[in-house]
Every structure is written in structure tokens, then in C-alpha cells.
């Protein structure tokens, strides 16, 4: 009996003309999303490659490792073009020096505001906006529509238990809507392969997880629609109610919760921090210069080396002071920020759409963690770079300003440096298990939403007025 009801639901949905239209649109959009994602990745990749090459090129002819203008870049990640998250908002370029605080600059949107105007088409948008609407469109009249057409009485003139009917309804709709959408998804996967997007095995796992989470959200909307179609008398009302709920889930709740958190938790201005840091470093600089006059070479023949050692010692002391001062300030701000994030995200999770969006960006490595992840890896690289500089020149560069070494004693020009010796910066996205860990709560929430809405629908239908 259940399978008969499921089959009927399948046939009814797939055979309807609205399915043809809306499936065509969704399928097209899915394909476009994958295509555009792959293309975008390639564009970003070539820009990234060009920037890296230019960075190396700019070092040619330089004779001193302290004089290079080294930069590291956040590489484009294949999944980031499918779920952009905040990847376009974070600074990508970091001017690398042996010491001093690293600052990531030039977010994609700051650099090219045209893309900020209308945003990107990605899987997040697809599941949140398009496919959830798609689910509503097919299930808003699941029960009250049958009543309006008189088929409900006819069905229940047979020996059908109510629970079988409602179960058949939900399962049938879910299968009928999800299965066909898997086809364009799979073609999308193929597109990624064909267009040569370098996806690792972990990337595939993550992508798979994103899609699964997306369909969890999709079935939340199916269950919700079935529930609403039970508690409302006519299908026009249920559609309207669902549309309003959709607007709240997708647009209002996530955005307002962030704003509420912004008000509730005060995070010190970044400008304030910067000023404090600048003041502190200026003070240290003055002290530094005052101490320089105290340098007296012990050995006149080797004074240059001695001076460098002196400078380096001085610099290191200064660096340590600055570092601990900056770190204290940063830590305070980051702590406040973390509280703010927690408030915002947990409030937003009232909406299943927000849960999905958070989970998807966690899996794609474009969640808020991207910022700290990038910062951490850049800091580690800085240590490596400093060690390298130290080995090469006995000194590290940094502290703002360019360094030029001018020799007025007529020495021969020293040999050029070989940029290939420079340690490579390789950004590693969060591992599969780490991103799974941070996305787990949202997956759990989506399950809970599914269960709640289904249970509500189930219980209400047992008391539904079938006349």
C-alpha cells in the first residue's frame, strides 16, 4: 500500500507540466553553477599564477635577500568557487617580511566591486533560494490540494490507514523531487572533471557532503510544506504562508541575527587597534634609534658584520616586544569576535537555511574559519621565511619601509639572488575531518528540523478533517 502511494506521488509530480518547467530551470541552473564555478576557478587560478610568477619575477636582479618584496597569496580553492562563503571578502595578499605583523589585504570584492554588486551564483544560493522554492512549489498543496480536488475522500473510501497515506506523501515527494535533481548534479561533477578542476579525493568527499546537506535542507522544506498544507484549509493560503516563511528563513532571520549580535557584543574597532600598535611601534623605533648611537665596533675590520649582528639583536628584542603587545591586542579582539560570531551564528541557526549555509561553507573551507586558518599558516610561513633570511643574510627584514644597502666603499657588486631558493608557501585547506567536525552541528540541526516538521505533519494529519 505504501509503495503504491509513493509511486502515485512520483507519477503525479514527475508527470505534471510544472515539473517540466521547474525541473528544466533547476537543472539548467545546477549546470550553470558548476560550469561557472569551474570557469571562475580557472580565472582565479590564472590570476593567482600570474601574481605568483610576477612576485618571483620581481626578485630577479636583486642582490640581497633583505631587499625582496615578497608576497604570499591565498590560492583559489576548487570548492570555494562552488560555495563562495566569505572567500571573496577576506584579504588574499600578504606582504611577507621576516618579522612584524602580517596583514592580509585586497579582498576580491574590494578589488573588483562589480562582483559584489550582484554576488555569485553558487551551490549555497542554489540550495538556499532556488531549490527550497522548488520544494515549496511542489508540496504546498500536498494535502489540502487533494481535499480541494475531492481525491482525499475517494482515497479514504478505501482501506487506507492515515499514517500510511502521510508517510507515502512525504516519501513519495522527497524521492520524486530529489532523484531527478541528482542527474544534473552528476553532470555537474562531470563538468568539473572535464574542465580539469583539480579536485582531490577529500574535495570530492566534501562536495558530496555539501550536496547531501543541501538535500537535507531540501527535505526540511518538503516536510514543512506538507505540514503547512495540513494546517491550512486552502492551497492558496498555504502557498502564501510558506512563501512568507521562506523569506524569513532565507533572508530575515540570518541577516537580523548577525545584526543583533553586532549590537549585543561590542568588538573594538580595528582602527583603534592599529593606532595603538602604531604608537607602540613608533615609541620602540625611537628607542631603537637612540640605542643605535651607542654602537661601538670592537673590531674595525669586521665592523659591518658586527653592526648587522647588533642590529639583528636589537631588532629581535624589538620584535619580541611588538609581538607580545600586538598579540595581546589581537587576542582581545579575536576573543570578542568569537563571542560575537557565536551569538550571531547560533541565533541564525533558528533558520534551517542558515544552518545549511554554515555547514556548506564549513565543508568548502570558506566559513569564518578561513580567516584564522589563513592567518595561522601565514604566521608559520613567516617563521620559515625569517629563518631563511637569517641563514642567507644574518638578518631579517621588516618593521615597515624598504631596506637598501648602499656601499660607498667601492666593493664589487654582489651576486644576484636565486628566487627559486625561496621557501614556497602552500596553503592547506581545513582537513576533511576538521571541516566535518565544524559542520556536524548544522547537519544535526537539519536532521532535527526534518524530524520536527515531519512529526508535526504526521500528528496533525491523524486528526485531519478529511471531509
Amino acid at each position: 500500500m505504501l509503495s503504491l502511494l509513493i509511486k502515485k506521488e512520483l507519477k503525479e509530480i514527475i508527470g505534471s507540466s510544472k515539473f517540466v518547467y521547474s525541473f528544466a530551470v533547476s537543472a539548467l541552473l545546477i549546470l550553470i553553477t558548476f560550469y561557472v564555478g569551474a570557469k571562475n576557478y580557472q580565472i582565479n587560478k590564472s590570476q593567482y599564477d600570474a601574481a605568483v610568477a610576477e612576485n618571483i619575477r620581481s626578485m630577479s636582479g636583486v642582490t640581497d635577500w633583505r631587499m625582496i618584496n615578497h608576497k604570499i597569496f591565498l590560492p583559489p580553492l576548487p570548492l570555494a568557487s562552488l560555495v563562495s562563503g566569505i572567500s571573496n571578502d577576506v584579504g588574499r595578499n600578504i606582504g611577507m617580511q621576516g618579522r612584524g605583523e602580517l596583514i592580509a589585504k585586497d579582498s576580491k570584492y574590494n578589488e573588483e566591486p562589480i562582483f559584489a554588486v550582484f554576488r555569485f551564483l553558487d551551490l549555497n544560493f542554489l540550495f538556499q533560494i532556488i531549490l527550497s522554492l522548488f520544494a515549496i512549489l511542489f508540496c504546498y498543496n500536498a494535502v489540502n490540494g487533494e481535499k480541494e480536488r475531492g481525491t482525499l475522500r475517494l482515497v479514504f473510501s478505501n482501506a487506507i490507514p492515515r499514517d500510511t497515506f502521510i508517510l507515502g506523501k512525504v516519501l513519495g515527494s522527497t524521492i520524486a523531487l530529489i532523484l531527478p535533481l541528482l542527474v544534473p548534479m552528476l553532470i555537474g561533477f562531470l563538468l568539473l572533471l572535464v574542465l580539469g578542476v583539480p579536485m582531490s579525493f577529500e574535495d570530492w568527499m566534501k562536495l558530496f557532503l555539501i550536496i547531501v546537506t543541501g538535500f537535507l535542507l531540501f527535505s526540511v522544506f518538503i516536510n514543512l510544506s506538507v505540514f503547512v498544507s495540513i494546517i491550512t484549509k486552502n492551497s492558496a493560503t498555504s502557498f502564501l504562508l510558506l512563501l512568507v516563511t521562506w523569506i524569513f528563513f532565507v533572508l530575515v532571520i540570518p541577516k537580523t541575527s548577525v545584526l543583533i549580535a553586532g549590537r549585543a557584543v561590542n568588538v573594538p574597532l580595528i582602527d583603534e587597534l592599529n593606532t595603538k600598535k602604531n604608537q607602540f611601534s613608533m615609541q620602540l623605533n625611537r628607542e631603537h634609534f637612540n640605542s643605535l648611537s651607542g654602537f661601538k665596533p670592537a673590531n674595525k675590520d669586521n665592523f659591518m658584520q658586527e653592526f648587522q649582528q647588533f642590529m639583528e639583536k636589537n631588532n629581535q628584542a624589538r620584535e619580541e616586544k611588538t609581538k607580545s603587545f600586538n598579540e595581546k591586542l589581537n587576542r582581545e579582539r579575536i576573543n570578542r569576535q568569537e563571542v560575537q560570531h557565536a551569538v550571531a551564528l547560533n541565533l541564525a541557526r533558528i533558520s534551517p537555511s542558515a544552518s545549511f549555509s554554515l555547514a556548506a561553507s564549513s565543508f568548502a573551507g570558506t566559513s569564518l574559519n578561513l580567516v584564522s586558518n589563513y592567518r595561522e599558516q601565514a604566521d608559520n610561513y613567516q617563521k620559515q621565511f625569517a629563518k631563511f633570511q637569517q641563514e642567507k643574510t644574518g638578518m631579517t627584514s621588516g618593521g615597515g619601509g624598504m631596506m637598501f644597502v648602499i656601499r660607498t666603499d667601492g666593493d664589487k657588486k654582489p651576486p644576484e639572488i636565486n628566487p627559486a631558493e625561496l621557501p614556497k608557501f602552500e596553503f592547506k585547506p581545513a582537513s576533511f575531518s576538521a571541516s566535518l567536525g565544524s559542520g556536524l552541528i548544522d547537519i544535526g540541526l537539519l536532521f532535527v528540523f526534518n524530524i520536527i516538521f515531519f512529526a508535526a505533519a504526521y500528528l496533525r494529519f491523524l486528526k485531519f478533517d478529511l471531509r
Partner: protein
Amino acid sequence: MFRLLVEKELKNIIQSPKFLATFLTCSFLILLSIGIGINEYFNMMEQYNTAKNLAKTEMAQARSWMALSAKAFREPDPMQIFSAGVNYDIGRYSIVHERQDSKLQNSVYSDDPIFAVFRYMDFTFIVTVVFSLFAILFTYNTVNGERENGTMRLVFSNAIPRSTFISAKFVGSWLGLVIPLLVPILVGLLLLVVFKVPLSAAHWIKIIMLISTSVLYLTFFIAFGILISAVTKYSSVSFMILLVSWITLVFIIPRIGVMTASQFISVPTVAELESQKDSFSKARWEKHYGEIEKVWRARNAEMNGMSEADRQSYREENEYKWFEEDDKVRNEVQKEITEYSSKLSDDVRNRKATLENLALNISRISPASSFQLAAMNLSTSDINLKNRYEKEIQNFRQTFSTFTQKKQKESGGQAGMFRISIDSQSGVKISSGRDESSLNLREVPKFTQPSHTISQAVVPTIIDIGLMMFFTLFSFGGAFFSFNKYDLR
């Protein structure tokens, strides 16, 4: 007759239960968006003032004119309440210094990425997404619904011309949807007054234009809904078509437009650009210092054969002159570098402008993008905002560095840098060229916000408003025409 039909249409809309629900939702969203906008504006303003003061204290710390750098901040505009545009995406300020390329940095979103997670919900967004959706919801069955109900035959059993019927449909729906929505909008404007948002006459003109543009946008969707309901037989079909069109117009075309354009035109990234600038400047400086090296060797050579005491006195006698000479050459080098980098920037900016124009023109197929573009232009949060500021900051940098150079000369001493000379005989010598008292900053030029007149804001919207009008007329004309041939049975 016409009046009667309009009245019927109005009643039909206003009495329907869905009207109350949509009206309340829309009102809530409008007021929420304006409320948030006001709050956000004051917040940004506070941040702006704090940051400006901080910058002042920072400047006061400088000990030499050449080391003095200023910050030019972007002042928040109250119009951002209506359309945030690229406001949060582009940098809030730029550092201004003779030897540093100025560009906007530290966007709100990069400082606090949490706000980027779900983006802002402004008035323009509500109009673009929600108003249009509701317009469709009320018009999808205006014509074919009457046929399905059988009321159409009844109406046309009377002496009613078709043109009167369809015009009344349009006017009635328009009044029924636009007038109620104006109520929360007006309340929102009242909020602006109550919370004392500083608005000039120019702002009010722009606000009124923005609201009129929103109404025009809504009108388009009303006309479009009627058109589709007049070319289809069943309301279920027209609803599907409209929903699909809505998604396409509001969400897809604008995005695709930008992406399509980016496939055709590649623009070097900032990273690449900067690297090019850097390597030019580095090469130039290196050449310069190479020359300086020679000059100093020559100067040292002049002292050949002198006694140590003579040397000393010769040096002291000439040192200031030498510094001056060096300084002059140095300034020329800096000028050359600045010119090169601004030429490079202009080049990229032009290529970007081509990309942007292409992208925007593609996206203008959809009135939803036209509306958003017009709203952003009116709110001065359009994509050119960045260029306007960077240009103005570039000019300011000129003024600023001319000023600091002048001051530097007046105060004497050399280029504001510390010169550490190491000599095998005399050891380390540090000269800063001047005393360490603080600078008198009163005369320092101040950055003024780029002027953006009303006409500069309005002119670019003409094309978008024109396009929306065209689409509206086209839809209404289409509805009118096809209804004349409509099968009334």
C-alpha cells in the same frame, strides 16, 4: 464604468486574505530594513569619527614632515540606508603618503567577516526581491483567473469594451498594491526624521527619486504579471511561468551578466599590479642609489689628499648642499615612480571599466538589475564609488606631499629619513637632520570628500529608469494587445 471596474479590482485585492499577510510582511520588512539602515549608518558614522580622531593622534606622533602620513577616510553617506551597494565591500580609508600608493583598504566585510556571512538586507534588496514576488502573487491570475471563475463571461455579457476591462485591471491592481506599500515607506521616512539622520535637500530629492524608481519597478512586475495572465489559459500555468521568470530576472540574469563579462575580459589582479609597480620602483631606486654611490665616491674623491681635519671641515661645509642635491634627484625619482604607477593603475582601471560596462549592460536585460543599479547610483554606493574616492585621494596625495615637501625644506635637514653611515674610522653616525620636536599640524591640508552632485548621481540612472519604463510599457502594451484577442469563453 471604468471606475466601477477599478473599484472592483481594488476591493478584490484588498479584501483577499492574502493581502493582509503580504501587506504586513512587506511593511515589517521595509521598516526593518530602514531601521537597520539607520542604526548601521550611525554606527558607521561613529566608527568614522573615532577613526578620524585616532588618525589625528597618530599624526601628532610624527617627528618629521617626510615621515608624516595621513589617512583619508570615506565618510558614510546617509543614502546607504536605502542601498548599501558596495559600501561594505570596499575599503574604508586609504593611507596617504608621498611614497606610498594610495588605495582604499580595510573594508567592513574584511574587518568583520561575520557581517559578510549573510550580507546586509537593505531597502533596495527588499524591493528587488520581495516587492516583485508579491506583485506576481497578486497578478498571476488577473485575467485567466476570471475566465476560470466564470466571471469573465458574466462581465462581458454587459456592454464593456475589452480595452476598458484590461485598463481597469491594470489601474486597479496598481492602486491596490502601490498605495498600501507607500504607507510603510512613508513611516520609514518618518523614522529618518525622528532619529535625526542628517539629510540635506539633495538627499531628499534622491530619496524621492529612489522611491519613485521602486514604484516603477513594482509597476513593471504588475504589468508583467497581467501580461502573462493574459497570454495563458490557466492560472496554474501563468503562475509557473511567472515564478520561473521571477527567479530568472531577479537572481539569475544579474549574476550571469557579471560572470559572462568576466569570461571575456581578464583584468590583472591588484597583487600582480602591485608587484609590477614594486619591481619598477625597486629597479628605479636601485639605479638611483647606484648613481648616488658614484656621486658619493666622487665626493669622497674630492677629499683625497686632504688631512683628516680638512676633510672634516670640508664635509661639514658641503654636507647640506650635498643633501639638497641628493634630495632633488630623489624627488625626481619618486615623481617618476608615481607617474609610472598611476599610468599602470589607469590602464587597469580602463580595462576594468570595459568589463564593468559590458557586465552591467548584459545584466540590464533584467529590470531587477536596472533597478538595483539605479538605486545604487542614487545612493552613491555604486561601483564607481571606489574610483571616485581613489581619484580624489590621489589628488589629495599630491597636495599633501607637496605640502610636506615644502615643510620639510623649510624645517631644513634631509629627506626625513634617518641616515646611518658607517665608516671604518668614525664608526656609526646617525643623522636625522633636524631636531625632534613635534610638528605643527595645523596647516596640514585636510582631505575633502569627493564631490558628487545630484546630477552626477541622477544622470547614470537615466538609462536604467528608461529601460524599466520601456519594459513596463512593453508588458502593458503586450497585455493590452493580447487581451484584445483573448478567448473569453
